[in-house]
């Protein structure tokens, strides 16, 4: 973890309201799939904003972010050469799976799952990546390792399977969920569905959570999530953001 002033290399709208932001990285520490960073919005609004890494190569890294509120609106007008104040890498990465990785990405969970999928493919896994979205316009063209098997699900059927990722996993497929290990990032309701599928199939499931954060380094205990452990609350920023889904108290 360190704080650096990164130069923007690229900032491009890759799907409706989804941007890929690429920037210089000093290599003092190497981000791993599932880890995240925070960017200082320079006063508008006040608090730093967390985003998961979507790629890393020596000297540069990237995130995929959705334009949603004040901070991301501000980021969307960044141009090549602008400077951003970045703190990272933060949190714990995904744990390497024992079985075939079944990666589930929903909405803004896309960035970290792309990173994870590529990383696993480069490390001789054969990941399955399931990408869910409301419709086709929200899914960018993905820059993926060819060893990754990609499936799309859209609510309106405009791309791939018609229905959400849970419905997709419940349908006829050319792989068996019970041979896999789930790694997921996306909306809470999707993660909960992933957890339930994992329980039903008796497989492992890692989920990457989101909570409102203040410090993002583990100091303030603001970003906690309720667990099934003795320690009732765990910090998403420091103890997560990746958790074994069985540790989370799902509501």
């Amino acid at each position, binding site marked *: 973890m360190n704080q650096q002033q990164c130069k923007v290399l690229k900032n491009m709208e890759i799907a409706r309201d989804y941007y890929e932001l690429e920037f210089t990285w000093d290599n003092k520490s190497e981000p791993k799939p599932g880890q995240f960073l925070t960017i200082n919005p320079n006063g508008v609004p006040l*608090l730093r904003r967390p985003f998961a890494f979507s790629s890393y190569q020596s000297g540069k890294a990237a995130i995929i972010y959705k334009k949603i509120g004040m901070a991301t609106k501000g980021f969307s007008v960044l141009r090549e050469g602008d400077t951003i104040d970045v703190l990272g890498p933060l949190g714990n990465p995904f744990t390497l799976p024992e079985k075939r990785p079944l990666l589930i990405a929903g909405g803004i969970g896309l960035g970290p799952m792309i990173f994870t999928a590529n990383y696993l493919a480069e490390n001789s896994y054969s990941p399955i990546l399931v990408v869910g979205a409301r419709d086709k316009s929200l899914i960018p063209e993905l820059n993926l390792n060819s060893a990754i098997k990609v499936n799309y699900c859209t609510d309106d059927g405009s791309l791939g399977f018609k229905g959400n990722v849970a419905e997709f996993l419940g349908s006829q497929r050319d792989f068996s969920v019970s041979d896999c290990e789930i790694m997921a990032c996306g909306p809470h309701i999707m993660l909960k569905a992933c957890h339930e599928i994992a329980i039903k199939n008796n497989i492992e499931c890692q989920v990457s959570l989101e909570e409102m954060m203040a410090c993002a*380094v583990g100091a303030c*205990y*603001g970003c906690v999530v309720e667990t099934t452990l003795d320690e009732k609350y765990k910090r998403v920023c420091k103890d997560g953001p990746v958790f074994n889904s069985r540790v989370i108290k799902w509501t």
Partner: protein
Amino acid sequence: MDLKVKIRDKFLQNPVGTASGTYGYGEEYGELIDINKLGAIFTKAVTVLPREGNPLPRLTETPYGMINSIGLANGGVDGFLSKKVPFLNSVKNCAMIINVAGSTEDEYSNVIKMIDHVDSVWGYEINISCPNVKTGGLAFGTDPIQVERLTSTLRKLTNKPVIMKLTPNVTDITTVAVACEAGGADAISCINTVMGMKIDIHKKQPSIYQKTGGLSGPAIKPVGVAAVYRVTKKVSIPVIGLGGIMNADDAIEYLLAGASAIQVGTANFIDPNTPITVLEGIKDYMINNGLTKISDFHNFIL
């Protein structure tokens, strides 16, 4: 240039500290800045027994501020002694000041009794103002009589500095400050968070579980500066100013208002380097304005 700040019979090496609850014990931030350069770390609150803290959500953002209701999540005295003291012992130069919280006089007393033997504990900051823990309706720190009694009880338990931390959520903060001084406090920290609330108009519910929480950040700076100014006119013990300090200019405002030291809180979240830039900025200002010691700041506003 003399940056030292005297509290009781001890000295902080400089007037810049980090505020309780925003900096842990400094472990996390130690990866990012050299905490040995700081005057003090005011630690997370310690209570006698472990506390898991409040249900979530605990945080929300407001215009130039944030609201928290962490609920004093901490490992209790045992957790402190086993898990934190080793780190405390590793810190040089920077004073480790333990923020103490409780809901009864005994709870406060017990914390001090149980940790006072630890040499690396420089002193105590007594949180009588946490808006998230209440006894009998109102926060402890709003009643001068109770505050004076608590102060003198704690004062007798230790030879280390006892600093009382005040809430701004009172009709007249100076009456509470005067009670602290009368009770034998060595210094006053001023201010804790301001009571605030935010509602998520999409969910039609309060943004944090506890509904109301503690507002901090730049939005409350004017409240903190007013409190420090008014309190320093009424007491002669040192006052440590905080509330919304984002940069050196803000810290200098507090020093000119009468503070002898300052704490950086919410700003750590936005730029972990803030305490260092504040310290450097204070030094520059002193050079440019011919000030040679911290008390020189107090010559301008009467």
